């Protein structure tokens, strides 16, 4: 089994991306192991009486030269709320690296990312890390409204972005699954990757099955340990109940009982 670590990371900066989302960049106290898109860390929430367990967050970026690891924190409840408030100089204890990454695309493949909410984190990481030319990569990013989108200008070089909002305030009006790329051009892709709300991922999976396209999703089952010992995070699959934290969080939809 690969080595895992528990370490205090030093917060380098914390940039607010929109009303609820924060990009937290941290310095690792020892050289980072290789970490791929889809893998995650389990973060301790300090000084929060109501919270007992850690909280999992996908790795958003790795900067090996500076030994930085970044996550995007979206405020959902008390734990993420506390974590979103860290400032430069704070430390965060992380268990890392956890989980299995996405299956990286091969050269020349055309790939589609579909994400919503904090689900953009592992997808932007993969878009940047997979090494495909911009033309081979499309990303549909959905949100409720304009303000919920985060600025992805830095990532424009890695793919073509398509935005949707439920209220039409930015990009296409409607759900990501109603976007023309999904509706009409799906067959042109070799691989689809989805990460976001469960209902969204299920809808994407249904389309992918129909068109028989390779599709991986990243699940967010609630976790106690994050490294395979508690068996709390299971997902029923065709291979039985599997731990999302060790056999996932990335699953090929063919394995899921959706």
């Amino acid at each position, binding site marked *: 089994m690969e080595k895992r670590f*528990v370490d205090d990371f030093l917060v380098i900066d914390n940039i607010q991306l929109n009303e609820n989302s924060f990009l937290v960049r941290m310095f690792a106290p020892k050289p980072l192991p290789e970490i791929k898109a889809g893998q995650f860390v389990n973060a301790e929430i300090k000084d929060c009486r109501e919270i007992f367990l850690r909280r999992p967050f996908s790795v958003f970026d790795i900067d090996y030269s500076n030994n930085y690891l970044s996550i995007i924190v979206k405020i959902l409840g008390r734990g993420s709320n506390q974590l979103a408030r860290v400032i430069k100089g704070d430390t965060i204890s992380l268990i890392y690296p956890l989980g299995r990454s996405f299956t990286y695309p091969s050269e020349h493949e055309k790939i589609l990312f579909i994400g919503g909410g904090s689900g953009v984190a592992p997808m932007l990481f993969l878009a940047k890390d997979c090494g495909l030319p911009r033309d081979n990569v499309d990303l549909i990013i959905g949100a409720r409204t304009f303000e919920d989108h985060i600025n992805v200008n830095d990532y424009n070089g890695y793919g073509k972005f398509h935005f949707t909002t439920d209220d039409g305030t930015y990009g296409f009006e409607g759900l990501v699954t109603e976007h023309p790329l999904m509706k009409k051009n799906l067959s042109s892709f070799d691989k689809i990757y989805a990460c976001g709300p469960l209902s969204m991922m299920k809808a994407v999976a249904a389309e992918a099955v129909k068109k028989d396209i390779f599709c991986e999703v990243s699940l967010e089952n609630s976790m*106690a340990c994050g490294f395979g010992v508690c*068996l709390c995070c299971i997902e029923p699959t065709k291979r039985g109940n599997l731990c999302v934290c060790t056999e996932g969080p990335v699953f090929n939809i063919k394995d899921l009982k959706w």
Partner: protein
Amino acid sequence: MVDLRVKIHKLDLKNPVMLASGTCGFAEEINSFFDISKVGGVFLKGTTLNNREGNNYPRMAETASGMLNAVGLQNKGVDYFIDYIYPRIKNYNTPLIVNVNGSTVDEYIKVTEKVDQLEHIPAIELNISCPNVKEGGMAFGISPKGAKTVTREVRRAYSKTLIVKLSPNVTDITEIAKVVEGEGADSVSLINTFLGMSVNAETRKPRLSTITGGLSGPAIKPLALRMVWQVAGAVKIPVIGIGGIMNAEDAIEFLIAGASAIQTGTALFKNPVVPLEIIDGIKDYLLRHNLKSVSELTGSLHL
């Protein structure tokens, strides 16, 4: 130097800090963080005769200073353990103890007999206290009669070290402890989780698929400590203390209350390297208090 060694019947432990069943997988997962041979012993994930898928998701709910689980003994069965897991872990240099479960006495015996064949498993922990299964489990552990029967039958089938794990969901845990001692248990470990429940007020649904689940973590420490103290005063066999141990101070409290060794469970989820911190903390404490051996702490409560 201080002496951390502890003897639990025929088991020689290099220190009293062990890992609780169901919270450390099959030792490999914790070994991914540090060299597992450093701990006193590892209680492997609960094992049954046949493959069990366990309960439905969700199986976990956070509570104040604790958590509820409803895993329900998901495991691939004892044969899979013997064929695929045991070969990978058998050479870890620390006692590996199988946590034996069953829906019937017969199943307990069958699992025990199979495990008995394994050279590198020097002991079993008879789990008669799992609150998350419909049949067997806690049902045996909450009645003196059930505890008596299953202990007697398993004892007959097993000559290595037999540890019986007790349920806290009883009126008088000393009664059960005395019964299993009477049937030849070599040690008792306590406690397993407390039966609890969590409700989502907004949806008005239980937070666990099974409605109720087992409570663990620091919330239950005062209750576990009390039971360890009561049981240590009631039996002569060594007591292994479990329940909400999060750090060396907690572990020392259990030793003082009468435990010969301890297991740390839920704490591993928050801090997988906590066993090392506890071992170091006990060492420091002994030095600071001019004690030569950890066994001097056991049952040393000043009244």
